[in-house]
């Protein structure tokens, strides 16, 4: 049982742990850390819900190596990422940029909130402004008293 669990854990953890292969790493830890951060923000276009940092796809490997080459060659983070988006488009950015095509994505929730909030406040204000409830007439008051007595 223990062995099976260990094997399961190994299988589940293995791809994540080994995606960035030792041979890919840069010798300078600072540069490697930057490359690591960037590759966690880039989508693998082969297996589209993984980052290139965690993907085992050969193309993800190539892109990790490429990214490290750019960084080692002195690219800033933005330049290195642009090198990849120039080729694969903004789709590879796991955090989509704010550009006209993504305005709906970024501002949609705020617009919906404003619309719903506006609608609700108009509705509530109208309800409050509606004529106040008329006080009970004498006959109604007596009827209520009678009802309460019957209850008791």
């Amino acid at each position, binding site marked *: 049982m223990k062995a099976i669990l260990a094997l399961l854990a190994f299988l589940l953890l293995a791809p994540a742990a080994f995606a960035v292969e030792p041979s890919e790493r840069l010798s300078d830890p600072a540069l490697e850390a930057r490359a690591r951060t960037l590759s966690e923000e880039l989508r693998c276009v082969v297996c589209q819900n993984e980052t290139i940092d965690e993907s085992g796809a050969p193309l993800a490997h190539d892109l990790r190596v490429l990214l490290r080459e750019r960084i080692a060659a002195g690219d800033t983070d933005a330049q290195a990422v642009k090198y990849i988006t120039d*080729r694969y488009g903004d789709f590879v950015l796991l955090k989509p940029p704010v550009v006209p095509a993504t305005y709906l994505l970024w501002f949609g929730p705020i617009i919906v909130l404003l619309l719903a909030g506006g609608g609700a406040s108009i509705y509530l204000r109208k309800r409050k402004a509606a004529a106040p409830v008329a006080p009970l007439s004498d006959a109604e008051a007596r009827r209520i008293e009678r009802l309460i007595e019957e209850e008791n």
Partner: protein
Amino acid sequence: MRRLLFLLPVALFVAVAVYFLLALNPNRDPQLLPSALIDKPAPAFQLAGLDGGQGIALAALKGQVVVVNFFASWCEPCRDEHPLLMGLEKQIGVPVYGIAYKDKQPDTERFLKQLGDPYHAIGVDESGRTAIDFGVYGVPETYVIDKEGRIRKRFVGPLSERQVTRELLPLVQQLQHS
């Protein structure tokens, strides 16, 4: 005006329903990515040929419309596409170039010997860097490059007869006459 307000939820529902209808269309592949390079200059490349033979250089292709097909011997869909490629040059009337993507040369040679060589010339891209410059994310992929060396169209996955007659052929003809 007030009455129209009651139609708003209906309009919203219709909009969402239409969106779902389009998004759930079984013929639409949600994994398909648009190319970032459409209408942009094709990335320069200079690739050696098989066995030290004549390769391909982008600069030498300027002035003519060309089709570039990324393929590999290890790629199963490339085999499916292959019979169509065999007659493609004749069918569309422009040269079709092949780029062997991350393939070992003997394997590429065996592949072409077995199935036939449909290409005008072949470039060897063993590192896959030229493919990355093109934004290739899986073989086969097919690009149309116009006379000025701009990428005009990308087909992802094996070309179908329908894509050739409906999209590739009209585009190539239009580009040739412009």
